[in-house]
């Protein structure tokens, strides 16, 4: 029972790291980026290549995944995304689906279509019992790492100058611009940060979620749930949504395996009907 809770938290944390970038781009730039999963996939494949081809340590792969995805994100933002901030949502959807298609086919071309497997370092394998709770070492690692990330993010958003600029830009871009904030730079950095986090999530998730070229689509629904349920106006909203989703998903599979995914979708539609702006968003949010 507590083991399930533990697993659910680990899963939820992972989902949060994967999805929070999406939530930021959506809230900040009002951009529906369905290609978010492609950045996560990039991180995953960076890990696979580094570990399996060059035999590098898993721990080095994580920052590398972050950096590569962030760089790719920053470049794409400058070149392709920027002209579309003002475009209609339909255009954004089409555009990001296009990116997803290209990413899938491209990865398929270079890496092949099969499941990618990595071997975690031995100290992260296996599990131990703690007060009767079975704790997977790798899951514990994920929880600790993600918790650290969440705290850092929260602090960065509330305490740093960049954070306050970001929040100002989210609240009202025009006003922020008027106050001398370089909104365009904030956008770029944020997009890169979001993509990087997704890449990190992808790297962390390779072992847990599996990795193949269809990754961006397979997990799109989960990302979108996190964002729509959590709202886009804060970090804590998506975080709670991700945790809830993770726990609900794991518990659902444990207790009613037959209904599996059904519960998740039904919950999402229900939330959207009752609270179109997300479960945790402030009243009258975007």
């Amino acid at each position, binding site marked *: 029972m507590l*083991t*399930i809770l533990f*697993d659910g938290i680990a*899963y939820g944390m992972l989902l949060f790291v994967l999805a929070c970038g999406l939530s930021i781009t959506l809230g900040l730039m009002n951009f529906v980026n369905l290609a978010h999963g492609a950045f996560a996939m990039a991180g995953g494949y960076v890990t696979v290549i580094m570990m399996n081809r060059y035999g590098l340590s898993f721990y080095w792969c994580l920052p590398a995944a972050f950096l590569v995805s962030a760089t790719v994100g920053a470049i794409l933002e400058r070149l392709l995304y920027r002209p579309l901030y003002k475009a209609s949502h339909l255009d954004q959807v089409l555009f990001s689906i296009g990116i*997803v*298609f290209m990413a*899938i086919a491209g990865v*398929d071309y270079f890496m092949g*279509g*099969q*499941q990618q*497997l990595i*071997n975690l370092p031995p100290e992260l*394998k*296996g*599990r131990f019992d703690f007060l009767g709770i*079975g704790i*997977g070492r*790798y899951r514990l690692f994920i929880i600790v790492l993600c918790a650290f990330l969440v705290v850092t993010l929260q602090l960065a958003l509330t305490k740093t100058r960049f954070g306050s600029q970001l929040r100002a830009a989210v609240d009202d871009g025009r006003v922020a611009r008027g106050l001398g904030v370089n909104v365009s730079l904030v956008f770029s950095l944020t997009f890169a940060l979001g993509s990087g986090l997704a890449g990190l999530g992808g790297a962390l998730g390779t*072992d*847990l*979620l*599996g990795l*193949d070229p*269809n990754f961006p*689509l*397979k*997990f799109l629904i989960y990302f979108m749930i996190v964002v729509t349920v959590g709202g886009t106006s804060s970090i804590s909203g998506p975080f709670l949504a991700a945790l809830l989703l993770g726990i609900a*998903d*794991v*518990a*659902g*599979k*444990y207790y009613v*395996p*037959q209904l*599996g*995914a059904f519960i998740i979708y039904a919950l999402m539609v229900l939330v959207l009907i009752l609270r179109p702006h997300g479960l945790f968003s402030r009243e009258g949010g975007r």
Partner: protein
Amino acid sequence: MISRRVFIAGTAATTALAAVPAMAADVLKVGLILPMTGPFASTGRQVEAGVRAYMALNGDTVAGKKIEIVLRDDAGTADQTRRLAQELIVNDGAKMLMGFGLTPLALAVAPVITQAKVPAIITSATTSSIVKQSPFYARTSMAGPQSAVPVATWAVKNGLKRVVTLVSDYGPGIDIEKGFTDQFKKDGGQIVEAVRVPLQNPDFAPFLQRVRDSKPDAIFVFVPSGVGSLFMKQFVDRGLAEAGIKLIATGDVTDDDLLNAIGDPALGVITGHFYSASHDSPENKAFVARVKKAANIRPNFMSVGGFDAMALAYAALKKTNGDTDGTKLIEAMKGQSWVSPRGPITIDAATRDIIQDIYIREVKKVDGELYNVEFATFPKIKDPNAQ
């Protein structure tokens, strides 16, 4: 999964134009429909390699007919499979069809071949009910829970009395769950719990936790091969082996194609299946060598399905003496027996389904590579669901 439904209708156009004069008596076209792209692309590659290997080893001419393979990709989408089958028959004049990577793909084609009276050989899909859908179906892969039944018998004999089953929730999975459960109970075993997981499921953790909490002697698993490797990892990670729970499975989990990628965690896993690349016979050695050379992959059970489909096609043509009439061909296929790379097999004259030996294997390291090493044989297993 997205629309990777590649269908090579453009090729269809060119070949269709060329086909009209080429319908000369000495060429016989065999339509091969496989998922060459999409999540099931590895199935397609394996089957194709098997088919090509047979032709490379046995020549491309039989009973005065030059065999020409027309390969089409359905990307695993049923309406594409159906359309391609119809086009192959109508436009290309194919006299035989082969392939069908998944159950729905095979089911979608049944009405077409019945209407057109063209025999079709199933190289991959395993659900029991498929061959009943059309009198023109024959099968060289596996019939329903064939591979699971001997595992049940073996398990009880080796003291694994309390077992949890975990299968993917789709046709073959349900077939296998039933086949295993029936036999296992008959032999005096007890099914503690039966878990079905969604076909495309990323996270086995909760299911495995559920298994762990019910403390069985062993867990019996059937999941498709790609997912199987992911399953293996999580099985080890969750410490089920340490908790004294043995893993027994059908051969899909320790697919020859992926076994080395799974790595050492797979060592010692006991599976039952109809084919192992390490099967010790001259037929198999030639087959494995040929596929490795031509396609640079280790052949797996899909590949041998393709190989034997060609073998069956050749045998039927020999028997009809080159007559390509569909009804005669399917008649000729009934009751055929030969020694395949997997061992001796027979096409059941009554059901047109395959009768074959099932081997119990253990994953071992041979010359630095992992192999399913066969150590027990259950001869002449029929589809238990067909009886």
